[in-house]
Each structure stands twice: as C-alpha cells, then as structure tokens.
C-alpha cells in the first residue's frame, strides 16, 4: 500500500509501541504533523523544543523505554540540542525526529536550514539523515535499536520535508542488521568473574559504588542481594540514586564532590571497590590520583570503552550489571561465602553515627535539608523526584532519601539548568498515577518556566518546589568559598513572584513560610489535579555541605562554609 513518508514514520513509531511524542511543529514537519493529525498517537505540545527533549528524557527514565521528541528544521532542531546533550551524558534513550529542508535545498543555506546531523553527532549515539522515503522503516527501527540497546543513548533522525511527502510502499523489517553494531549479550567473561571472586573473597572491606547503569539495567534487587551477601556498604553516584533504597542499613548515600561524609570516608577506607555501571566521573572521584588509593577496583560496565577511560582498574567486567551481579552472587553462594558480621560494617555504622551531627541545621530560616526530610516523610515511596541544577539538586541528592529505582531523575552528566520541570512533565506522562515533584532552583526554573503552559494544557499535576534563594546559588557558593565572597553576577533578586507566575499560567501557586505549611501543602498537592508551584524563600547563604573543593581528593572535605 502506498503512503506518504510522513505516514510511514507514524506507522513505524506505532510498530515501536510509541505512545506519545513531545514536540513543536514547523514548516519542515508539517507533513509529519499532518500524518499525526489522523493517527491516535498522543502528541504533547511543548512550548520550547528543549523541553520537548527533556520531556522525552523524563519519560524514558521513568519507563525504561525510548522517549520520542520532534522539532522542525533549523531553530526547532537547534533548540533540541541541550536536551539531546543531557540524554547523551546520562545515557538516556531518546529519539529525536527533526524536519529538514527539502533534499534539493540542502547545503544551499535555505530558510531554516541547519546541519543538525553535524551539530548533534558529538552528542548522540548516532545521528543520521533519511534520504528517501523507502529508507524510513529501516531508519526508525535502527534508531530504536541503537537508542535502547547496549549502553543507551539519544539518536537523531533527520527527515527532509520532501522525503516526508514522497510516496512509498513501506516494508517494515522485523529485525535489522547493523554491520558495525553488535547487540551485546551482556554475559560477563568467566575469567573476569573468577578474578573478581578472588578479590571479593579476600577483601575485608568491600564497598560498592552503584551508578546509573544499575538503574538502566533494572538490577537494584540483584545489587541489594549481592551487597547483603558480601556485607558491602553501597554508595551511589548522583545517577545511581535509587539503586539501593536509601533507608537500607547498607546504604551510604551519594559519594563525590557533594557526597555524604560517611560515603567519601568509606571509599577512602575500603580495600576493594566494586564499581557497577558508573564511569568514574570527576564529580564522583574528586582528584583521580587520590581516589581509592588503598583499594583494588572491580569495574562492571556494559560499555568496553569505559574500562580504563578514566582510571586503571584491577578487574574489568564488561557485562550487563544485572547478569554480572547475579553470577557473582550465585558463585559466591556456591562456594558458601556468606558474611554475617564484620568489623567493616561496625566501622561503617560508627562513621554514620559520627557524621550524623554534622548535618544538623544551624541558624535561622527554612533549611533545605529539613524540607527534604519533610517531603520524604509526606509522600509515597514510589513518588518521582526531578531536580533543577545547582544547590537545589545537591540538597535533594544529599537529603532526600530515594527508596525506589527510576524515582530520582536529574541532569547528572551535563548539569543543565531547566531540566526539572520538563523532565517532571515527561515523568508524569509516563506514570500518571504517581506523584511527581520537581525540586528546583529559582534560576533553573526560569530557564524552562514556559512549559508550565504545557503542564496546564495537558492537566498534568506536577508539583514544583522552588527553593528561592534569590541567587544562582551554587555559583554563589563557589564565589563565597573560593573567590573571597566576590559575588559576581549571581544575585537574582526577589524576581519573579513565583506564586503569581504560576497563577498567570493557570497553575496553583503557594507561598511557603514554615515547615508546617510546607508539610500541609505537600500533602494537599498529592491530590492536585493541576500543576502546583511552591515558592519557598531560603537564605542565599545556605550552602551545600559537605563539599570537596574542585580538583581535590575526597578526603579534603569542607564541612563549614
């Protein structure tokens, strides 16, 4: 049956079981939108393409399947860039479909032409252009396959307008072969497992660092079972939050620049680090030469290029984290290696106790840490949290205890302000029955604030908690600590009034002035039917502590600002 290229794309998306597309139409995607018009595929109209990409990303991280976004050629496509870069850095599977000027006009600097394949090649797993309608079925299959297998990541498919209009009799492949791409079985090599077992059994102070790979591979359960078997405390990276319930006795919380004191100390004292699905990023390791100097390292990762990229390891295991952890677990059981008590765990517990008092709140005003604890206590375990970037994000990471995987969604690798609200919208679309909270900063929120309109139009009750410190707080903190309080251009003033702003969009705005009113607002918001924005004034001098200064080793922690 003959149909237009545009319809062939829509049909291909449905075959990939796509339920929703986030996007904004334009000249080069009019045919595609025309095909959407008569399809039952849901479309969420974003108000900025960056948000469309973040929404697809939030959706993907909650559901574990690719999220799809679309934009027109030129400015629409370039607006996607930040969103694609976020997905790339956090290995999140999104598919971006962009319109392009007609084939005959490519390279002529036509109206709204931008080389989006060129622009996004360094920030995608793959970016390519479809040059005839007959390629569409393979192209869409390829995009989904690449985005959702091995180490996941964004894929961009650029479709010239005339290709969308071209008639085609599409032939949808069940399977597709990409010569240069092998879908990994994820099975670990027996030799590396054997070596890892040796290290584990001879270790007295093993410690696990879980990264986003544990979430991506859906293996929290395996991770916890493994940790319990070998009695290893579990620290996580920012992306790994949720890999272990943070109220589990073995949980240490986040490690790294803004890691918890006990986690960083434990890394220093461990004699074996088992790194699972993490990439030894600089925000996690601090100064590399000083990272885990006294320990051996086992590194489990699905991406062979991560092995040895940043750090030399003793035993690399290129594998799916789930498979590697289950095999290690069962092999250890086979040899009857199970620990029931250890000096190490006693040491860990005493570390936790001794650091506990460091987190107590001092001074006046509402304290972010307390707010995070109240929030945790008031909302169901399965609630989803997204964040902005900056202090708000780090307070959430430090003090909000995540209890389930895929419930803490943040721009870890890129650190893109503006991620919180659109990611929350995507998360809510993915999981309408779960409460979704965006913990945000006043600066970050403003970067994508216009998509409150999307949330209102789609009646998506996402709840934004804006920690209004009237500052680009994280930068201000660095200026305070490392620039002698020379606060260059980080003062935002008390602008805007977020309550009025929310109301202007038709969302509910609430000003929070006490812990009690926060608690009741949170509880009430669980039943909200429209988006809610809470403005909470906090002091611009609140700091995220502890902190390891940039370029320093993890032990050089600052506790007081």
């Amino acid at each position, binding site marked *: 049956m003959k149909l237009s290229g545009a319809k062939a794309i829509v049909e291909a998306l449905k075959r990939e079981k796509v339920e929703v597309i986030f996007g904004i139409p334009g000249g080069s995607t009019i045919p595609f939108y025309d095909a959407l018009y008569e399809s039952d595929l849901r479309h969420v109209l974003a108000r900025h393409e960056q948000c469309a990409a973040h929404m697809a990303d939030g959706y993907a991280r909650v559901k574990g399947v690719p999220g799809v976004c679309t934009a027109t050629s030129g400015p629409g496509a370039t607006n996607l860039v930040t969103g694609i870069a976020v997905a790339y850095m956090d290995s999140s599977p999104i598919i971006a479909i962009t319109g392009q000027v007609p084939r005959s006009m490519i390279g002529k600097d036509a109206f709204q032409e931008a080389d989006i*394949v060129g622009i996004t090649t360094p920030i995608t797993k793959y970016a390519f*252009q479809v040059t005839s309608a007959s390629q569409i079925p393979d192209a869409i299959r390829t995009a989904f396959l690449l985005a959702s297998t091995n180490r996941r990541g964004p894929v961009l498919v650029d479709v010239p307008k005339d290709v969308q209009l071209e008639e085609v009799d599409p032939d949808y492949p069940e399977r597709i072969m*990409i*010569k*240069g791409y092998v879908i990994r079985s994820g099975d670990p090599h027996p030799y590396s497992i054997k070596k890892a077992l040796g290290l584990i059994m001879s270790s007295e102070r093993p410690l696990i660092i879980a990264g986003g790979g544990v979430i991506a591979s859906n293996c929290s359960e395996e991770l916890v079972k493994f940790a319990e078997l070998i009695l290893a405390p579990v620290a996580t990276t920012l992306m790994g939050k949720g890999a272990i319930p943070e109220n589990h006795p073995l949980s240490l919380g986040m490690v790294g620049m803004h890691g918890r004191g006990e986690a960083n100390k434990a890394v220093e004292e461990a004699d074996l680090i088992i790194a699972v699905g993490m990439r030894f990023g600089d925000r996690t390791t601090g100064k590399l030469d000083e990272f885990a100097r006294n320990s051996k390292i086992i590194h489990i990762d699905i991406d062979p*290029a991560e092995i040895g990229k940043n750090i030399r390891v003793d035993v690399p295991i290129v594998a799916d984290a789930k498979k590697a952890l289950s095999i290690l677990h069962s092999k250890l059981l086979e040899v009857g290696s199970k620990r029931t008590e250890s000096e190490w765990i006693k040491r860990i517990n005493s570390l936790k106790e001794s650091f506990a008092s460091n987190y107590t709140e001092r001074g006046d005003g509402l304290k972010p840490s307390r707010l995070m604890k109240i929030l945790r206590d008031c909302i169901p375990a399965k609630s989803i949290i997204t964040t902005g970037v900056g202090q708000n994000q780090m307070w959430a990471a430090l003090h909000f205890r995540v209890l389930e995987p895929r419930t803490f969604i943040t721009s870890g690798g890129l650190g893109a302000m503006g991620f919180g609200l659109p990611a929350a919208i995507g998360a809510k679309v993915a999981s309408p029955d779960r409460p979704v909270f965006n913990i945000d900063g006043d600066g970050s929120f403003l970067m994508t604030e216009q998509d409150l309109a999307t949330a209102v139009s789609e009646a998506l009750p996402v709840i934004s908690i804006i920690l209004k410190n009237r500052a680009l707080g994280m930068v201000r903190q660095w200026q305070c600590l490392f620039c002698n309080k020379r606060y260059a251009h980080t003062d935002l003033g008390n602008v805007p009034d977020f309550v009025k702003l929310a109301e202007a969009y038709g969302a509910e705005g609430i000003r929070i002035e006490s812990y009690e009113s926060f608690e009741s607002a949170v509880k009430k918001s669980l039943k909200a039917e429209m988006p809610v924005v809470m403005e909470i004034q906090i002091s611009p001098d609140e700091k995220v502590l502890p902190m390891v200064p940039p370029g320093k080793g993890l032990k050089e922690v600052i506790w007081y600002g």
Partner: protein
Amino acid sequence: MHIIAALVEDRPGVMFKVTSLIRRRGFNIDTITVGSTEKEGLSRITMTMRGDESVVEQLVKQLSKIPDVVKISELKPSESVYRELAMIKVSAPDPAKRSDILNYITIFRGRVIDASKDSLTIEMVGNPKKINAFLDLMKGFGVVELARTGIVALSRGSRSTSEG
C-alpha cells in the same frame, strides 16, 4: 607509531563521524587516509598516531562504538606492511645539482614523474622514515612543493582484516 585500520560503511558522512570523534575526545592523529576495499560497500580508513598504548586502546574502543565502523583494529608495525606515497617538487635549475638529485633518487628508489627547466617532481613510495630521510636530503636543494598521502597498511600473511 601506531597504525589503526578501520573498515567503515561506504556512506556519506562516515568520515565526519570518525574525525568528529577524534577531535571531540582530543586524540591527536598524524595521518588519516580513506579508500575503497576488496568488499563492495566498505571503505578502509587508515590512521597513524603516536602516544601511549592506553590512548590508542581508548581511540579504538571509542571508534568501534560508531555504528558505521564495521571493524577496527590496531596493526602492529612489526606484523604489517605499510607504505606512504610522497610527491616532491624540487628546485633543480643547476645541471650539476640536478644530477646529484637524480643519484639520490636512484639510491632511494624513487622516480621522476615530471620535469621542467628548473624543477623535478619525484614520486617516492615507502616507509615514512625513508621518505623523511629523502626529504631531508632534498631540503638542501629546495623543496618547492610537497604532498604526502599518509600511510596505508595491511597485516602480514594471508589473513584479511575484514574477516573474523
């Protein structure tokens, strides 16, 4: 010197994917060439670089993640044959010097492929070290123009890089 040979899909934009990655990750390569292979639809990119074994390993691993890169491997210089072509235009107005140049060309097994009243254009194929040595000699006479292809290489023995 490290030699890396990659078999890639013969499609528009593939060279860009490869060079974009090299640039982005800060790898420093000395030469890069691309051409056809014995297999329809596949091109061969040959790169050379200096540096640590670990850097080469990273480059190979990163490049192999590009879906257009079908196969990639490092060819050890000791286990492969490799050649480069250089074309060198040398200033040679003086007949005495001209005969000196011709002598050197014979010693280095090069060929004269063009000549004019006051210049010779020489083709020199071989190991890049040999080309460098020859070039050093020619500098004394005045090199007017130089073009080098970069290295192409094959593994020694009967196996093909595109198999297995």
